[in-house]
């Protein structure tokens, strides 16, 4: 692709007028958004959604999604946006109820691609049991390139999703309750998402069977709470990876974290891909993995609940909170050595050689 205008194009694309508030925008909403996302709230096309008030506390979050490419093995920006917001609510101990969908589309985006992504939003929302109750659509011109830095064809899209949920009465999630001896659980293989996306990036692409793990985890978290286990802390290990979450725990609570390499779920493909790129799997992003800190006595029950859910079949207990001073995250390596683990410093860059 050269990004040049060929004139022979037959693909239907987003044009600036789709964001203009006129008939074309109306058509976009009625033909491409509403049919898939349909629910009473949204169908009314009011300026805001009216939701029932929960008995207890309301939990509210927002997140923006700017991933490129928009589609990748195991997911797309739509699945990411819904699962990400649902997971942010769920790890706070909330039952997600409703989300908003803000679309920022780049002029030139093929409508067919938009349709696929909206279908993915709908499917993921249904899986998580939440409704898209309000939304917004804007179109930006190509100068503000969303894609690959302005030299490629226009095909960009950003999504913002906000979400609300009601705090479950049985949740006592508080990093301050973490104590030495508590167990650290993770619900499956790490690093798949970040590596899958990287494997498609122009210039560094490589062939593999890596798939993003993007998934809504609210039902898995429901299953864990249902065991009655004393769950003290949950966090989705997105950007910054497992290392980022563990470093946060260590710093915030002032405890050490000891994890064992041999128990950390990692597929051989992901291990080799990370090795090739010179990346540390512990710091690579996930989109369907949570870290759970649970009282040691309740760890087997919580782990069993994870494993029985389809998003937790490879769940594992990977380590323990310890009293070591000063507070650090330490890894016992497969080779029998020890080293510390730190959060990454920024964008992890693939290395040479």
């Amino acid at each position: 692709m050269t990004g040049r205008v060929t004139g022979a194009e037959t693909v239907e694309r987003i044009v600036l007028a789709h964001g203009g508030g006129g008939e074309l925008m109306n058509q976009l909403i009625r033909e491409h958004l509403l049919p898939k996302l349909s629910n009473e709230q949204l169908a009314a096309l009011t300026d805001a959604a009216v939701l029932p008030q929960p008995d207890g506390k309301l939990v509210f979050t927002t997140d923006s999604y700017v991933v490129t490419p928009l589609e990748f093995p195991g997911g797309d920006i739509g699945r990411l946006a819904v699962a990400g917001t649902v997971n942010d609510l769920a790890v706070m101990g909330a039952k997600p109820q409703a989300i908003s969908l803000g679309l920022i589309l780049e002029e030139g985006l093929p409508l067919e691609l938009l349709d696929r992504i909206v279908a993915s939003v709908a499917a993921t929302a249904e899986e998580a049991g939440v409704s898209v109750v309000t939304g917004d659509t804007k179109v930006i011109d190509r100068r503000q390139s969303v894609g690959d830095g302005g030299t490629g064809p226009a095909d960009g899209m950003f999504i913002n999703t906000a979400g609300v949920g009601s705090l479950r009465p049985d949740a006592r999630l508080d990093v301050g309750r973490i104590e030495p001896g508590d167990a650290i659980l993770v619900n499956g293989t790490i690093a798949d998402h970040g590596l899958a996306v990287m494997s498609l990036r122009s210039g560094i692409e490589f062939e593999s069977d890596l798939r993003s793990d993007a998934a809504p985890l609210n039902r898995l978290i429901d299953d864990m709470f249902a065991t009655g286990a004393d769950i003290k802390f949950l966090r989705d290990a997105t950007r910054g990876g497992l290392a980022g979450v563990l470093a946060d725990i260590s710093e915030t609570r002032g405890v050490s974290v000891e994890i064992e390499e041999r128990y950390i779920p990692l597929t051989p493909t992901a291990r080799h891909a990370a090795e090739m790129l010179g990346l540390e799997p512990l710091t690579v992003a996930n989109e369907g993995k949570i870290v759970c800190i649970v009282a040691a006595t309740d760890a087997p029950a919580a782990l069993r609940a994870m494993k029985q859910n389809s998003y937790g079949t490879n769940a594992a207990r990977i380590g323990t909170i310890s009293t070591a001073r000063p507070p650090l995250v330490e890894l016992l390596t497969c080779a029998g050595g020890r080293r510390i683990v730190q959060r990454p410093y920024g964008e992890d860059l693939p290395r040479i050689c």
Partner: protein
Amino acid sequence: MSAKTERLCAELHELAGRIGRRVQLMEVCGTHTVSVFRNGLRALLPANLRLLSGPGCPVCVTAQRDIDAAIELAARDRVIVATYGDMMRVPGRLGSLEKLRALGAQIRLVNSARSALRIAREFPDRPVVLLAVGFETTAPATAATVLEADRDGIENFSALLCHKLVVPAMLALLEAGDVPLDGFLCPGHVSVIIGADAYRPVVERHARPCVVAGFEPEQILTGLVALLRQISEGRAALENVYSAVVSAAGNRVALELLERVFVPADAVWRELGTIPHSGLEFAEPYRRFDAVERFGLTIGEDDDHPGCLCGEVIQGKVEPAECPLFADECTPLNPVGPCMVSSEGTCAAWYKYNRPAGTTRADVPASWEAGQ
């Protein structure tokens, strides 16, 4: 710990005890450095065995003047610079490629020379320059890409050659004699190309044991055992404990590519200065792919931060923690020298994987059954 690892460690301790004195070995390759740290191997080594990191991180040995040249190119109108990821943050005189990209320069990450050529094919009306760094592992790919560009007439492609050769640097270190070295753990990847026999001059001229080893923890420990055994017996031989992958003569095809496209040339290494015949320049038929000639670049001088000890670090003269800037003014977030930037850099590995000095390990809670 596997039974084999345990046995290798026991052997290592036994040999180190028999030698009695302090032994200094250099792991030449950045991948070895990182593997040692990532696998926590330092905790398993005998106290009198010191591992020094050598000039084997391609990013760390690239002279600042070459980074400056890349930045100058990237700042030119319409030029697209293609670079391996870990060059992005290396500070030059006027900032880094990363900062320049934020200002709108076209800088593309690639993981192979061919990806850079593909960009050149995609944008035939824009000059595309590959920042060609790396040792004998990456140089053959640059050569093959140049041949492809030559064959297909991709004239908007060129390369800023910063390739370096490993053995001349090892010899230069020994000739300088500033650091007492008892032997070399030789790089697995580079040796696949150049062959184990390439280290003969080190063994023959300087009587230092050379052992070619792989990068897995057990392979590294096997290499260290072989080195200590030679030292304990007073021998200095060339040994290849990675012979499943590395042959004596190397990869004939890759070596022929190098010979065809390049000629050996003196090269400037970061802080080490010029080392004779330690780099590559284009052979006559391919000179037009040389970015320096094509763009009329003047390669300037280096202006390294006065306090930065990267030059000493890559020669094994000091350990990162001995640098006054380490973990203070110079961190991965704000790197002063390249050894803190690259994922293969010694300073970055120390910062990332080493316990801070003076910390103790407390009791691990009662062992738990992981219930996997």
